[in-house]
């Protein structure tokens, strides 16, 4: 009996060792890749098809794709990094990239880029490449881009109110259209202004400031929100409040989408990524690129995601191969639901998948990035609070003065 027990013990102890021997023979590396999904374009299925293609080309690398809903993506990534369970590769929002670099969560990629045949700076949109730079090193490879915002409009409502859609590219035109389209008794609102404190309202407000020739920060890093151009843009947004649905401070852009889709809102603001959602709806819609004061060009706010390799990864070489694959001109367009960051891929992607490809490209080329700083999230938080104060009735001058004193204290 004792002998049988001993043999059993030996067998149990030996199983993990034998298992390892087998694994070493196969030498298969499994990479974990995290991405988030922002649209209803069926991204996961496209990514899986690309992954199958990659695995066929590299039989020794397996990819485990994890798609996380956008709203919880940031929390999950931070938790994973803090808990030592970071994926090998993930997408990170452009605005997180400097923070991830400074925190040591991700690794610099300059050496890989120097030896790469496919990844080079001039293959990507310049603003996107810039967003991955920190301290003269490259910490991510641009994956996808987009620009806030395009004004999507409801054709039927515009026709009924006799409004020319092109008129809403100017501030005066937008306000006049909003007024003409608004009829609160009928539950109809001209413009889908929202004010819930998150990044979406920051990019919209920034684009109004940029379009008026203003900026969030001066070149020396000090706050520029109290400059006349910014103040004017913020006052202009306040003047649109009577034409927006009630409950501005707790309204998200997703709430506005619901109202737009059911015909209660005439104009909604989104990046081009809104198109798949609208295409799958029954709404008759059109869109124009941004809004600016008469005589000025609408300037959008740059957005997008970069691919990073985590410092904790045990398979950095293999991870780099996967990044090269995902950002190549033939593949990049198949694995994104925004616009591919690879310029060649973007051109064919837009022609195939988006209406108004030229307009989108032009708006993308005019776009300005948000401040690239490891403190960006704090800066954004201050801006969000400022916008909430202004939308709840505080004087613009007082709110920007308060925000600027906080931003300048960030250092």
């Amino acid at each position: 009996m004792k002998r049988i027990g001993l043999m059993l013990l030996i067998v149990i102890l030996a199983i993990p060792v034998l298992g390892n021997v087998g694994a070493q023979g196969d030498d298969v590396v499994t990479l974990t890749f995290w991405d988030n999904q922002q649209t209803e374009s069926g991204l996961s299925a496209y990514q899986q098809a690309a992954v199958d293609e990659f695995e066929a080309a590299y039989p020794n690398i397996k990819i485990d794709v994890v798609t996380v809903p956008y709203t919880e993506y940031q929390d999950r990534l931070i938790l994973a990094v803090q808990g030592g369970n970071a994926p090998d590769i993930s997408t990170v929002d452009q605005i997180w990239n400097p923070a991830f670099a400074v925190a040591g969560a991700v690794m610099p990629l300059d050496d890989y880029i120097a030896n790469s045949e496919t990844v080079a700076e001039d293959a990507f949109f310049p603003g996107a490449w810039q967003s991955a730079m920190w301290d003269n090193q490259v910490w991510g490879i641009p994956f996808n881009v987009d620009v806030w915002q395009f004004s999507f409009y409801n054709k039927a409502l515009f026709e009924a109110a006799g409004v020319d859609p092109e008129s809403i590219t100017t501030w005066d035109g937008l306000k006049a259209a909003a007024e003409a389209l608004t009829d609160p008794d009928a539950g109809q609102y001209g413009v889908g202004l929202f004010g819930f404190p998150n990044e979406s309202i920051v990019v919209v407000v920034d684009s109004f400031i940029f379009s008026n020739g203003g900026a969030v920060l001066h070149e020396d890093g000090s706050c520029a929100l109290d400059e006349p151009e910014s103040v004017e843009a913020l006052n202009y947004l306040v003047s649109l409040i009577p034409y927006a649905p009630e409950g501005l401070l707790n309204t998200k852009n997703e709430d506005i989408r619901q109202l737009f889709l059911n015909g209660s809102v005439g104009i909604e603001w989104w990046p081009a990524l809104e198109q798949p959602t609208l295409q799958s709806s029954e709404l008759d819609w059109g869109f124009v690129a941004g809004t600016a004061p008469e005589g000025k060009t609408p300037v959008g706010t740059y957005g997008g995601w970069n691919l990073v390799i985590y410092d904790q990864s045990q398979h950095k070489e293999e991870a780099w191969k996967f990044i090269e694959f995902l950002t190549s001109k033939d593949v990049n367009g198949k694995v994104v639901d925004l616009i591919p960051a690879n310029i060649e891929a973007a051109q064919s992607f837009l022609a195939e998948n988006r209406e108004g490809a030229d307009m989108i490209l032009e708006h993308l080329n005019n776009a300005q990035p948000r401040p690239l700083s490891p403190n960006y999230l704090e800066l954004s938080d201050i801006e969000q609070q400022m916008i909430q104060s202004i939308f709840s009735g505080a004087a613009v001058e007082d709110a920007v003065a308060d925000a600027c004193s906080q931003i300048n204290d960030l250092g």
Partner: protein
Amino acid sequence: MAAQIRVHTAKRSSPQRKETHGLGLAILFVLPAAVLVLTLMYYPMIRTFYESLFSTSFLNPTPEYIGLQRYSDMLHDSDFWQIVQNSLVWTISVVLFQNVFGVLTALLLNQNLPGKSLMRGIVLLPWVLPGIVAALLWRFMYDPQLGLINSILISLGVTTQKTAWLAEPGMAMVAVIVAAVWKGFPFSTVIYLAALQGVDQQQIEAAQIDGANAVQRFFRVVIPSISGIIRLNLLLTTVFTFNYFDMIWVTTRGGPLDSTHIFPTIIYEYGFGKFKFGDAAAYGVVAVLILSVFALLYLYELRESIRGRAS
């Protein structure tokens, strides 16, 4: 616990060896639970306090010792006092109304009315609904354009305006309190229903014979009989409410303008919204300190009620 068992074993058997054996056995039984409590509860709590003494964030993963600096900064920060004020308003209001409604519905369900069992089941619905689902439900109902509440009020002619319940700084707190009371009062109902069934019917009948009316019977006989349970339930619901995260996070995320931020939501926002783990830890420690007062009161009440029953 170990001491109690030791006393019992000592009474039963005098030999020294048996007593030691009993003690060892007691420790053996208690050990797994003790290890679990230590690792899952006390270690994270102590670790949180330790974390709050350092300036740590996602950007500065290397901790820098700052001692109690953060606590002294916090006491001079108006945002902190706003959180304290919000937490007090939220907790006191929700607990008060939950308990009042709890007692009233329990009294109703304690009557011999037709369909009593069915009603008892239905009244429990809000409590068994998952927190996120309940919060989403209320978010939809409060929606200014599409929400049920505005559409009912407008169709009844109460108002012509679409009220943005969750978007006005003064109104939002009231709105989340109403939602939380709805979600939580069935818990109190169940507790009080059980308590009411333990009230001595003879006393009530005696009071009735002596000429006490329904209100007098309620305040002079029923309430004193269940006062121990009321105190316990008040304490329990206070702890639940103080820690209640989902309702506020889903409906307002602490806004507008921080007017509904309470301790759990601000801790989450500092930790995961701003990556300021040290600040999140400090708020966590203060929350634990506040809750400890209630926990001690709860333990005291529990001991008193056990003593009361024993005597």
